[in-house]
């Protein structure tokens, strides 16, 4: 489906993506990377919106640069906001479908179907300035799938969605993936992508650091130090119990009620916490991750890449 051979993209003296080699068959892929890691540049190279400075890109066996007809087979839901406040959802999606070469009536029919599919038919005749963030996100998905593409590319589709919206988005993406169509999901939040169960492409600093199945990525994460802050009524007792039962690397009392833990086995920690609460009647009012697990993973992958760490996961 997509092949990149030693692809590098430079914006003058800034590297967008650096020497990426990929060969993706049809399937579901999670493109993961911190903000500014080169995900959008990679997507634009795949779409033929950017020309690689070095190397080549092939999409469905064809060089996508200047082959705009290829875009008929792709649905793109970018991360940027829709900026047509006066247009209604139906008008905008119809116009977007028209640009795929459909006549107005045909385009409007497809737009209505896709807006219905994303659950926006009740609001499709309202100006988009009155839409909530979730509704605008749905409209963006609607325009991406209305022409029934073979490959759907979504850039940060969970941005700004509330928990219900996130759940619905996950359900939609699972349905799409189950149809056997191509799906590339770019995000900087691991667990959101993980829910779709894709193969992962991990990108940082414009480089493809790793790729593989969820199990392989989990394997790398298992060795990644994980930081967690807990708010409790009895921090000293909780700290003692956690040190007894878990492999805690370090801990720090950040306030009278807060403790910061660092562990290499987050799964063990999450297993032990409910048991401690139950047995010792300790009240824990808040648990939050102080570092984005993905950022930690990427910093570790970067170290692996530079040879600063021994490679174990991959």
């Amino acid at each position, binding site marked *: 489906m997509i092949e990149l051979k030693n692809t590098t993209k430079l914006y003058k003296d800034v590297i967008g993506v650096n020497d990426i080699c990929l060969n993706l068959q049809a399937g579901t892929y999670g493109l993961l990377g911190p903000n500014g890691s080169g995900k959008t540049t990679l997507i634009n190279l795949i779409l033929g919106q950017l020309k690689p400075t070095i190397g080549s890109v092939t999409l469905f066996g064809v060089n996508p640069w200047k082959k705009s007809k290829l875009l008929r087979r792709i649905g793109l839901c970018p991360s940027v906001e829709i900026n047509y406040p*006066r247009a209604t959802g139906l008008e905008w999606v119809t116009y977007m479908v028209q*640009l795929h*070469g459909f006549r107005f009536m045909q385009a409007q029919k497809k737009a209505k179907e896709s807006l219905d599919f994303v659950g926006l038919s009740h609001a499709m005749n309202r100006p988009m300035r009155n839409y909530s963030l979730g509704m605008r996100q749905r409209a963006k998905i609607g325009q991406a799938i209305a022409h029934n593409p073979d490959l759907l590319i979504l850039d940060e589709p969970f941005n700004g969605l509330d928990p219900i919206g996130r759940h619905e988005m996950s359900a939609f993406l699972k349905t799409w993936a189950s149809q056997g169509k191509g799906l590339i999901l770019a995000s900087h939040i691991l667990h959101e992508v993980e829910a779709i169960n894709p193969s992962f492409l991990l990108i940082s600093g414009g480089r493809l650091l790793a790729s593989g199945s969820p199990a392989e990525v989990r394997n790398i994460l298992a060795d990644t130090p994980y930081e967690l802050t807990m708010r409790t009524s009895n921090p000293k007792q909780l700290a003692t119990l956690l040190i007894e039962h878990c492999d805690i690397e370090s801990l720090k009392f950040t306030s009278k009620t807060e403790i910061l833990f660092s562990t290499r086995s987050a799964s063990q920690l999450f297993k032990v916490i409910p048991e401690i609460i139950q047995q010792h009647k300790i009240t824990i009012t808040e648990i939050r991750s102080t570092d984005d697990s993905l950022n930690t993973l990427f910093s570790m992958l970067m170290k692996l890449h530079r040879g600063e760490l021994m490679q174990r996961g991959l």
Partner: protein
Amino acid sequence: MGSILQNAIATCLFEIRSSFTIQRTSVSLVLALFPPTMLGLLILGARFSRSGISSSILQDFTPLLTIVLIGLVSLLSLILWATPNVSAELEGKSWVFIASRPGGRISIFFGKFLASFSVSYAICILSISLCTFLIDSQLHTGDAGRFWLSLSGIFFLACLTYGGIFSLLGVLFIKRAMTFSVGFVIVSDIIMASVPGVLMNKFSIRYHLQEISLTWLGWFLPSSSEEGYRVIFGDGYPATIHICILIGITLFTLCLGAWAIANREYITTYEA
């Protein structure tokens, strides 16, 4: 080709529909009303003048003044509508939605050209109609129909040609398109067009529009200046040749613009 035209019309309609805000409509109305207001004030000023300006002097100057004022207004409207064809999409972050569709880039180019032409020409027509009514009712020139038709034809060609040029400049110079457009008008249609007796002035758009105006309206410039005019501009060609040249320039700029927009990398702000 049919698909490009179909998409361009869709883009034009969407563009006009979605950008017709109160502010934009007000700006368009102010532009359309500016020439008749100025003309009305001139006529009113002459009426109440102590030195007694005769209506024949007014009849001599009003056609020229009408053309200059509507010309300014049409240029301003075209610069406002045609030049931000790519920059508005890039800044509004809607470019990525359009560029990810087959022919989306070309559609936005032609569609926005059509929109800028339609709006600017509509402003011109409203302005021409009001000016013609004012001149005919106040100065009793007697050939209002011919005057209206001639000006409508001249400004149709003007909007088409300048619209094409400004659209091309919008594609080539994204960040400074308006500055380049104003620069083009100053260099080409004020400086170059005024160089006397050489071939250079024939390369300006103004020269061709002037010659067409002279053919269709007859001698509309102040009578004393006819000899001087021919010294500067030489003898003209038949109007059809000038029309063909203007249409040729439009086609050339549109083709070049379409080629450039389809083959150029546009870096979106969230990417850079």
